[in-house]
């Protein structure tokens, strides 16, 4: 972890207009929860829709996608990454610094509203379960999306395809795809930690934890290796 890289990355992230997209989704999440509760709806009626379908299935991956591809992908696109690459730093240090920034920003942006939503549903155990699940999900998604920035020139597109097609569409028809779904790990961990019957996971805790680890470690190692062999594109002359 290199503090100079982390500081520049964070400033670059919040300096971009794209970071404004981080605000509405968490506010919408809290707003819907407060509205449902104030209209007298029972948590059983709105928690699965607001927390699972919107919070864990959409808000978490989309924010991780914006942040995860922003910390490295944007610097690759505008060429500023070359300044960091031309320094005697291990590529692991660079990737980990960027990953930590992406994780912290995603986790804060997602876990705080999830915690509030849990409290609105009058369940502190649900609130803490969502926080723990959100942390695991933030780490896994960010690792994946940072790695995608180095694996493809269209990390946002590929990331969206993973979230929308693989996790949200295919997993409804093919239960086997759930084993490779960060969404399912997040849900399972939140379910187990909270012990709440308002949400329920579809994979075992062992699968959720081990596969989360595989995603985080595998994607990070892959990203470091790709950055070691990263070619800086220049104007031809």
């Amino acid at each position, binding site marked *: 972890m*290199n503090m*100079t*890289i982390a500081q*520049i990355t964070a*400033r*670059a992230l919040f*300096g971009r207009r794209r970071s404004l997209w981080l605000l509405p989704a968490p506010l919408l999440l809290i707003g819907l929860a407060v509205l449902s509760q104030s209209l007298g709806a029972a948590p059983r009626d709105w928690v699965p829709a607001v927390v699972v379908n919107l919070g864990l299935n959409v808000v978490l991956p989309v924010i991780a996608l914006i942040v995860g591809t922003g910390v490295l992908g944007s610097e690759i696109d*505008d*060429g*500023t990454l*070359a*300044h*960091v*690459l*031309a*320094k*005697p*730093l*291990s*590529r692991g240090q660079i990737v980990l610094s960027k990953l930590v920034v992406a994780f912290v920003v995603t986790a804060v942006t997602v876990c705080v509203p999830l915690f509030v939503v849990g409290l609105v549903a009058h369940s502190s155990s649900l609130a803490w379960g969502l926080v723990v699940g959100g942390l695991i999900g933030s780490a896994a998604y960010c690792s994946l999306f940072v790695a995608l920035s180095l694996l493809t020139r269209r990390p946002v597109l590929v990331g969206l395809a993973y979230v929308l097609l693989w996790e949200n569409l295919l997993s409804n028809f093919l239960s086997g795809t759930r084993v490779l779904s960060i969404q399912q790990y997040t849900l399972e961990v939140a379910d187990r930690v909270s012990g709440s019957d308002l949400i329920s996971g579809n994979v075992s805790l062992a699968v959720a934890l081990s596969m989360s680890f595989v995603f985080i470690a595998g994607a990070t190692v892959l990203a470091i290796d790709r950055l*070691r*062999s990263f*070619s*800086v594109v*220049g*104007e*031809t*002359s």
Partner: protein
Amino acid sequence: MTAPSPSPVDIASVSKWYGNVVAVNDITMSLGAGVTGLLGPNGAGKTTVLHMMAGFLAPSRGTVTINGQPAWRNPSVYSQLGIVSERESVHGFLTGWEFVLASAKLHKLPNPTAAAKAVLELVEMTDAKDRRMDTYSKGMRQRTRVAAALVHDPTVLLLDEPFNGMDPYQRMHMMDLLHGMGSKGRTVLFSSHILEEVEQVSGTVQVIVAGRLAASGDYRTIRRLMTTRPHVFTIQSSDNRSLAVALMGEGSVAGVEIDKADVLTVRASDYGTFTRTLPKVALARHIRVQRLVPADESLESVFSYLVGA
């Protein structure tokens, strides 16, 4: 017996291709201390060569070493290497000071503040150092990038088109800076498409044409080795016409011409023989040679011969 120390920059049989397109074809060059200009027409492969030296690009074949260490997949070379790439993207939200200081910190210098202050003074950017870089002119950004590349006092400095966007004063200042580094024993390689710049900064050139190394060394020496092209001299003497007639009888002279201003131009087929013959011919006819100037030893003529060959 000790092994000879490696050259600061060594490129051995390096080629780079993209699919079927060969960008760099079997180039071997070795750079020592001093300033060297990297010349070539657009698309010749200069940036590709510089990027391979900078460890930004893997050679398809051959090896590139900096101070004996491989440049590719080896971040430790950057402790001795400074790079100013042509693409001038910078974090616009940083001030010049923050940018150079960050560079010093990333190099893990013992006193990054002092190092950043010194290089900003060197490139004369102290007054504007607290302004955001997105408010800088092109030349100011370029100077700040040079400061960031010099902050760790590298032994090897690679610059891709470093004079781009600079005004004449800044250009001169940058040339002095590169000269100074070269005379202190640093290895400086810079690419440029402006021949006057190269001519003013360095006598030593590496010329790349169509991905191949066309010539290497002092450009005046390169010119003299081009024996297939007549050497052009302009001569001023006490009697140009008589001298012209006499020179036409010499085997080393391919042609003479006298223009309206009575300037004698001689095309010599053999540089050495002609320069030895001229004094003898002039002396025999009691003609005083007042001036003898090689007319096509400029870098421009050398370059055009190489590119046109």
